[in-house]
């Protein structure tokens, strides 16, 4: 088990290192290089040379890369140019992180809470109207672009029927105490119930929009996996032994069928990160995704650097955790 974890950790380090090289190469390949990005319109040959020397760009590439790594490890990625001009890029990320964590968590919760029971039900009643309907719904769910789901929800629930707020994270003029930066949690912790409710209202539509794709995927995997397990020899054996349906379902079917589902849930984190970019920008929900959308559009490279590295690291770490959890659940994996 420990060897397994160590091996996966080493693999992860390689991935992160290669990523850092890519980000480094990426910054170097910018049109005109970082110097042009900084100087913009004001550049002259003298200024360029001076700045290049000051930034160490006249050094050989490996030296530059090591310096880049050194600064990156210290959390120094430069200063935002567009998203929040003048603000430290890492700080922008840290400020925006709680909002996205809150949003993604709720979205994943919705997807899991609906996807697994529905997938199980569809598999057990295979071929029924429930099954067919749910399968069609999940196929359509995958074909609808996330930002259009967001747009639809916003149009009907916020604009037409006026049930929920149109955009943002909290109503303006609401004086709420900040603790974690996750507004709903803050409201609960400080017992400011009106603030918590207000933040939750702002969170519902983006979370539902963001949940559609993970829901569809988790539903499909659960259904396929349960169907597969139902056909297994050990289920037949259990039936032959005379175990009650209830015991068979709980101990044999559900437990075994959940294995692939666990991995899938971990993988959805990647989709949530990309989905957050689109959803947050539709709802002007000021999280990491919204910052990324602005940074992509306005070419705020220091912020992009941090956000891309962070997104990839989060994705890799989550998948590592899932793999470990998986190895704990299923002993067969450790031996491979």
């Amino acid at each position: 088990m420990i060897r397994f974890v160590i091996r996966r950790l080493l693999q992860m380090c390689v991935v992160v290192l290669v990523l850092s090289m890519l980000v480094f190469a990426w910054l170097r390949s910018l049109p005109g290089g970082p110097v042009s990005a900084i100087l913009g319109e004001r550049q002259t040959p003298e200024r360029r040379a001076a700045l290049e020397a000051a930034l160490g760009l006249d050094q050989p590439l490996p030296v530059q890369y090591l310096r880049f790594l050194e600064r990156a490890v210290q959390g120094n990625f430069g200063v935002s140019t567009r998203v929040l001009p003048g603000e430290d890029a890492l700080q922008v990320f840290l400020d925006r992180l709680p909002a996205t964590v809150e949003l993604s968590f709720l979205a994943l919760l919705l997807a899991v809470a609906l996807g697994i029971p529905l997938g199980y039900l569809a598999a057990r009643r295979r071929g029924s109207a429930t099954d067919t309907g749910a399968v069609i719904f999940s196929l359509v769910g995958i074909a609808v672009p996330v930002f259009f789901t967001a747009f639809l929800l916003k149009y009907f629930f916020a604009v037409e029927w006026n049930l929920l707020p149109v955009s943002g994270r909290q109503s303006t003029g609401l004086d709420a105490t900040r603790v974690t930066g996750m507004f709903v949690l803050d409201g609960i912790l400080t017992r400011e119930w009106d603030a918590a409710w207000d933040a939750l209202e702002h969170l519902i539509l983006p979370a539902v929009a963001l949940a559609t794709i993970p829901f569809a995927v988790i539903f499909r995997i659960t259904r396929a996996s349960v169907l597969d397990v139902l056909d297994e020899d050990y289920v037949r054996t259990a039936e032959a032994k005379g175990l009650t349906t209830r015991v068979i379902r709980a101990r044999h079917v559900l437990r075994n069928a959940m294995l692939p589902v666990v991995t899938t849930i971990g993988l959805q984190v990647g989709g949530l990160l990309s989905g957050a970019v689109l959803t947050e920008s539709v709802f002007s929900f000021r999280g990491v995704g919204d910052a990324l959308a602005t940074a992509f559009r306005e070419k705020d490279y220091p912020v992009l650097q941090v956000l891309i590295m962070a997104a990839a690291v989060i994705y890799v770490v989550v998948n590592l955790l899932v793999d470990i959890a998986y190895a704990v659940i299923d002993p067969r994996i450790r031996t491979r």
Partner: protein
Amino acid sequence: MPDPHPTPEHPRPDRPSDAPDHPTRTTYGSVRKARIDSLAAAGVDDRPGVSLIRGAWQRLRRNPVFLIGLTITVAFVMLAIIAPWIAPWDVTARPLLDKVRPQTNPVPGPEAGHLLGGDDRGRDLLSRLIVGSRQTLVVGVFATLFGLLGGVTLGTIAGAVGGWVDSLVMRIVDVMLSIPSLLLAFTIASLARSPSQWTLIVAIAVIQVPVFARLLRGSMLAQRSSDHVLAARSLGVRPRAIVFRHMLPNSLGPVIVQATLSLAVAIIDAAALSFLGLGNPDQRQPEWGQMLGLAQKYISEAPHLAFYPAGCIIVVALGFTLMGESLREALDPKSRR
């Protein structure tokens, strides 16, 4: 490092599987990888009898899901081809310009000669929708084609040469798969100095390369140890001929199925990029994703401006998905019962 998913040489036909995309129980890395690999394994079938393709066709012919998907796809491609001739108005002309009132009526409604009305610049919406199918098709097809070419090249090299070349190529592929794919596409597209439909195509092609590479390599490895390759080798056929005449043609099946599914994803991803403003900014060439992005401004006044292009994207993506899913099911030897 040993491959975490050794491709089974003989898929067990006795294990029925309803959905072939479900991950194998021994998932170790990612489901994505496992799915690609299981798809690769599905391409190998040594059992005699009806040929895989004929058997697949017999099942597909009577499969309503496949037929619906095929109908949508064919209709979409035909529409894209004849678009300029059936669009009632020029997409750059602004016949409804005098009806646009920025304050009171920013988007002209339907009227005689303009079935769906106009957009915020007084252009005919129906014409732009019809002609928009072209860009969507071009972006989807080229992105998938380039991704396919890149992936097939890498996968062939890895699968045919083996050894350290294989390890190197697969590690690169793994790193690419370790970044959320749409984020990678956003990043690549944002690098372009002047965004156009080609930067969009390149961005989406790049994220498809690792999928195809892994898929093809899996198939090639499975082919490598199969009987017909052994026979060819013992007959003294040159390695190059074995790779290109025996292994590659037999490995392409699952790759082509994946390409159908990738096309749907490519169209949706392209729309997402356009929506973020990373696509083609040139409005003289309408594209559904771009139209959808521009419609956001008028969510309360004219939501139909978003509904139509989004509806088109959904229907087309669904068409390719239905076709690809049923193709995959039909070509999967496990589902032959």
